[in-house]
């Protein structure tokens, strides 16, 4: 007597494996869509940055906005990425990237403008298209804190531009913000 064990099928005729595969494919397509959207946004922001840099070079002069002026003395990067792995999972293959903007050695405790972007987020849950955005109103204390945080950030930004001289064109500052974004 032969006992035939059929793969259990769901009501719509799909097996669990097929459902999982379809979910993975959908998640993959969502990730690719997000990647293309981000690339498009990056291209647009870079174009703006190049235009502003060219404007700054035009107003300040080519000799003042030049690679010759780059700081070749030993200095750490003010903006860096922190890479961590999933806890408890060695070699999980899913690193987490945390952006630390303008975190110099003098203010290591204030990681300003952190943006967490992990590979998990490149493979997110299925995106719900048409979702609404929620805006939070800042309280007055939060506004004060953000102003206090902005001062060291501004100092770091000015320090980064100091290689081009003490007085720089507003276009150069705008270019800096574009490349920062």
């Amino acid at each position, binding site marked *: 007597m032969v006992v035939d064990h059929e793969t259990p099928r769901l009501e719509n005729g799909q097996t669990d494996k097929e459902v999982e595969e379809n979910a993975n494919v959908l998640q993959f397509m969502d990730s690719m869509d997000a990647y293309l959207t981000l*690339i498009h946004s990056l291209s647009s922001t870079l174009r703006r940055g190049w235009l502003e840099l060219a404007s700054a070079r035009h107003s300040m002069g080519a000799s003042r906005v030049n690679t010759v002026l780059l700081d*070749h*003395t030993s200095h750490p990067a003010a903006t860096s990425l922190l890479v961590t792995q999933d806890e408890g999972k060695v070699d999980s293959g899913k690193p987490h*990237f945390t952006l630390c903007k303008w975190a110099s050695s003098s203010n290591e405790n204030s990681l300003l403008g952190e943006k967490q972007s992990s590979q998990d987020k490149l493979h997110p849950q299925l995106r719900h298209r048409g979702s609404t955005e929620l805006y939070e109103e800042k309280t007055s204390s939060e506004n004060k804190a953000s102003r206090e945080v902005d001062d060291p950030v501004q100092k770091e930004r000015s320090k980064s531009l100091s290689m081009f001289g003490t007085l720089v064109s507003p276009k150069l500052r705008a*270019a800096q913000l574009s490349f*920062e974004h």
Partner: protein
Amino acid sequence: MDTVVGFLMAGVGNVDLRRKTNYLIVDSIKQIEDTFKEFTTREDIAVVLISQYVANMIRFLVDSYNKPVPAILEIPSKDHPYDPAHDSVLSRVKYLFSAESVASGRR
């Protein structure tokens, strides 16, 4: 060059005590290859930004790279706009889907 200057203004430039930098303004293809190999093996680099135009010069190296960290991101340059046909990530996706369609056609 403008791309490097811009990102350095954003604060990502690092120069160590031996005056080794974490950026390169392209010179020769050999130098690009050597620098790509160096940057992808350094432990203090998490993401390598490379102009797509420069990546095309060492396409075989970029396409054969498959580690998650440091991640390679091809970006457009001022004189050469982004071309999705040459992006290594999209090329792999295209290859994946073309392989899938061939495999499904054979079933």
